[in-house]
Every structure is written in structure tokens, then in C-alpha cells.
């Protein structure tokens, strides 16, 4: 089983990487860019666990380990 977790900086939180990348993108021939946010993309493979069990566990892990709720939001997708 495969899961994908996207972790993004919260809208309200400063994202220094996003700012730097936006400036670089604008310089790189795309001045029309208005905003960039940089987060993480985490692919997790799991073996030998029911989907229901895995999903609950993965939410917990995404919340407690993979993201920091003070500054980040996460989204979990389970590949079926």
C-alpha cells in the first residue's frame, strides 16, 4: 500500500523558501508569478496492514511527526 502526504506551510506563516523561489522564478523569465509556496511531498510504502488500520495510523503520524501543526498543514492520500 502506498500513501502520499503533502505538507505545506500554513498560509499565515512566513515561507522564506517560497519567497526566494518566487523571486527566482520571476527572474527566470516568468514575471507573471504571484506567489510560490514550498512544502514537502512524502511517499510512504506499507506492507501487511489493513487499509483502515493504516489510514488512522497515518493520520496520526502525519499530524504528530510529518508535519508541525504550528506552522504546517498536511494532506493525506492513500493509493488504492
Amino acid at each position: 500500500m502506498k500513501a502520499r502526504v503533502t505538507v505545506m506551510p500554513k498560509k499565515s506563516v512566513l515561507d522564506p523558501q517560497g519567497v526566494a523561489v518566487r523571486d527566482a522564478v520571476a527572474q527566470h523569465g516568468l514575471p507573471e508569478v504571484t506567489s510560490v509556496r514550498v512544502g514537502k511531498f512524502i511517499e510512504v510504502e506499507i506492507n501487511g496492514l489493513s487499509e483502515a488500520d493504516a489510514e488512522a495510523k497515518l493520520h496520526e503520524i502525519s499530524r504528530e511527526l510529518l508535519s508541525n501543526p504550528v506552522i504546517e498543514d498536511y494532506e493525506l492520500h492513500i493509493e488504492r
Partner: protein
Amino acid sequence: MKAAVIRFPGSNCDQDCFYALQQVFGVPTDYVWHKDTSLAGYDLVILPGGFSYGDYLRCGAIARYSPIMKAVVDYANNGGLLLGICNGFQVLTESRLLPGALVRNRSLHFICEHRGLRVEATNNPFLSVAKVGDVLNIPIAHGEGNYTADEATLDELERNGQVLLRYSDLEGNVSDATNPNGSARNIAGICNAARNVFGLMPHPERALESALGSEDGKIIFQSILNTLGVHSVA
């Protein structure tokens, strides 16, 4: 008294902190391995700088779940003096022992240099021998020391006198130009509401002798030892 320096895999200022306590201040000090589970008998615990678990995922995020951290949280909740330096500060915010978070420096570069730090509050065990407005010259060395928290949290920190150090110039002026990393309100170090947990990005253990460019780090160690009623040799 007895002090503990926690060693996570990837800690790299552990030996420096040990040297500071044991050699410079004559404080009996132990290393405590991250797989240990007890901090009984210690009067001061330091979470040292470095790259715990390679700083993978987020700085301090994996260390937070080391076996020793349960003991660290209990120790702090029981009022024990806890000092987190650099990566140690990051572990403290990840563990929610301190509010806010530390994100990438706004330049995206790692920065290592001496910096002025204005003392903002002294009614705590970590700066008791300083005066408000004093400027300490202490080096920073980090890539992710950009302190961030929501406005309400920041206001509360200010109100409670939990902001202990701000990046300034050597005259004590605080401005965007004296902010090395983009930290909210130039914050370099904060303590918790109970004032027994202190996290800071600068490295006081690197500023303990003139041969290294500054002795101002002694103020912090001396304050802690005074609080604990220890008369040190340094």
C-alpha cells in the same frame, strides 16, 4: 549540583557544552544518551546544538520522539532548569515545551558569525546577573533559526517577559538590519511561562573566553549557577 548534556544521534555541540560546564565552571556533568529514560538527580539539563537525526524532516522533529524526551518533558514540568541551545531550541519548540517554531533563515543560507543580543528580561534564572538593555556578544551558527509564531503568541510572550534576547547591534539597537535570519520581532531566545525552560539560537558555550572572541556567554551560565546556589570557579 549535577548537570546533564543530552546526546542525540547527530548532536555536535555536546562536547562543547560538556567542556563549558565541567572545565570552565567546574560543574560535575554527565552525558545522557538519547536511549536513556531517566534524568533523576540532575539540577540542569542542556539540549545541545547540532543536527539531531541529521535535521531530516524538520530540525528537532525526530529527536522529539527519542526515548529520553519523555524524561525531559517530566523534568521540565517539575520545574527543572532546561536549556536548549540552537538545535536544542528547535527540539524544545517541536516538543511544545516552548511556543512557536524555527524555520529557514530568510537568506536560505547557514550563518555563522558573532552577533549582538540585547537582554530583554532578567527576572528569570538564565539572565539574572545581567541588566535589561545589556548587550551580549555571542555567536550564532544555524540555517533554521528564523523564529515564527502567530501574533497572539508573540504578544503574550512579550507581555509575560518571556522574550529574553533579541538580535541587536553591539550598541543595543534592534532593527531589521540587525536581524540575521528574519526572526519575528528579532527574537533570539525565549523562555516558557514558568521561566524554567530557555531556548536560544545563539551559542553561549562558544563565548566563554577571550581567545574565542567573547566571554559574554558566561552571563548565562553564571546566572544559572547563581540560581542554583552554586559558586563556580569561573
